[in-house]
């Protein structure tokens, strides 16, 4: 079952119903609490990294990866119903996972074939981003393209979210025995001056030296 070659209409139907069930069933908290909890985690990591914001965000990204992998591993059993090995089904699986994790629909998601310069990638944008909401009133820490060194490091304030999705994605890709592994970055971030939030998943063949 885990090695299904392609997701069909029934799996899509199950995924679209199932994500609402999992979201409904999940223990929840106020988004306000979550956003301030994350801000304080970042503050601690910045202090631990001697005020080096990119180092703190990298640390946060790694923590996210581990958390995402753990969460996805626990959901692999029921998730099997909608998984496939086909890389073109990943947008569907990401949409379901995103909704289960964050309760928000991804409105726009695109699959991009491999080019001469870039690996296979999937990009998705969000209508709104709750993760950095606490920063509106933050006075001590400044997160922008310069302080996060986004152009060099690809790190953003949403790095923990990108990490969590990357961890979850790789747990699924391993489970379906996909020949690919993924890396996810927030490629547009409000804090970095972009007009909206966008995430990109890059896919590399396990045996290649692409990355």
């Amino acid at each position, binding site marked *: 079952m885990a090695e299904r070659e392609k997701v069909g209409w029934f799996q899509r139907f199950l995924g679209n119903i199932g994500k609402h069930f999992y979201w409904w069933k999940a223990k929840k*908290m*106020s988004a306000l609490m979550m956003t301030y909890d994350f801000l304080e985690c970042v503050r601690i990591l910045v202090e631990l990294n001697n005020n080096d914001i990119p180092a703190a965000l990298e640390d946060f990204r790694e923590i996210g990866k581990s*958390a995402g992998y753990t969460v996805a591993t626990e959901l692999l059993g029921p998730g099997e119903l909608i998984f496939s090995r086909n890389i073109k089904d990943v947008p569907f699986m990401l949409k379901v996972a995103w909704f289960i*994790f964050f309760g928000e629909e991804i409105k726009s998601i695109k699959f991009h074939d491999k080019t001469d310069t870039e690996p296979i990638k999937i990009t998705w944008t969000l209508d709104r981003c709750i993760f950095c909401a606490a920063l509106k009133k933050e006075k001590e820490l400044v997160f922008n393209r310069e302080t996060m060194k986004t152009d060099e490091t690809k790190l953003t304030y949403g790095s923990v979210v990108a990490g969590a999705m990357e961890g979850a994605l790789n747990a699924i890709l391993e489970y379906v025995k996909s020949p690919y592994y993924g890396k996810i970055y927030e490629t547009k971030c409000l804090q970095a001056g972009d007009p909206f939030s966008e995430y990109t998943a890059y896919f590399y063949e396990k045996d290649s030296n692409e990355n």
Partner: protein
Amino acid sequence: MWEITEEELLRLKCQQLFVPLIYSEVVARIIDRWPDNVEKKLREFGRRIGKGILSMWIPKNTDSVKSIVQETYKFLLKQKAPVEMKKDGRTLILRDKKCILCWEVTNANFHYCTPYGSLLETFVNKCRETNPKLPKIWVETTKSRAKGDSYCEHVIHILEE
């Protein structure tokens, strides 16, 4: 800009799932770097969260310490806060059997939910600005699932009337 508004943020809920996983990793780093100051760091963590949240939300019912604690728990953690007053009339006890911060942590040397105690302390003491009849309080976290107890306990000491 697609930034979220304060009104939207107050309305939205999110999964608890990632919070304890991420928090426990951060606490592990705190223990590693500041082994002698863990409690102080965790109290500061909760105070800062409280201060931040208070800039956007404040309990509506500030009649008593109990009502503030219950409303805060309900709004932020989406759960009931069983609070009872001790016979001395100067101590309230909050027992939490579903603590998120202590989720799956066992045999810890610290109460992982210490931030909730300092968060509640920050909330109640801030509400004194709008209701001067409220007493000043101090919250001590005395039991936690992380430390092996069957529930987490925050003791709310009333310091003055």
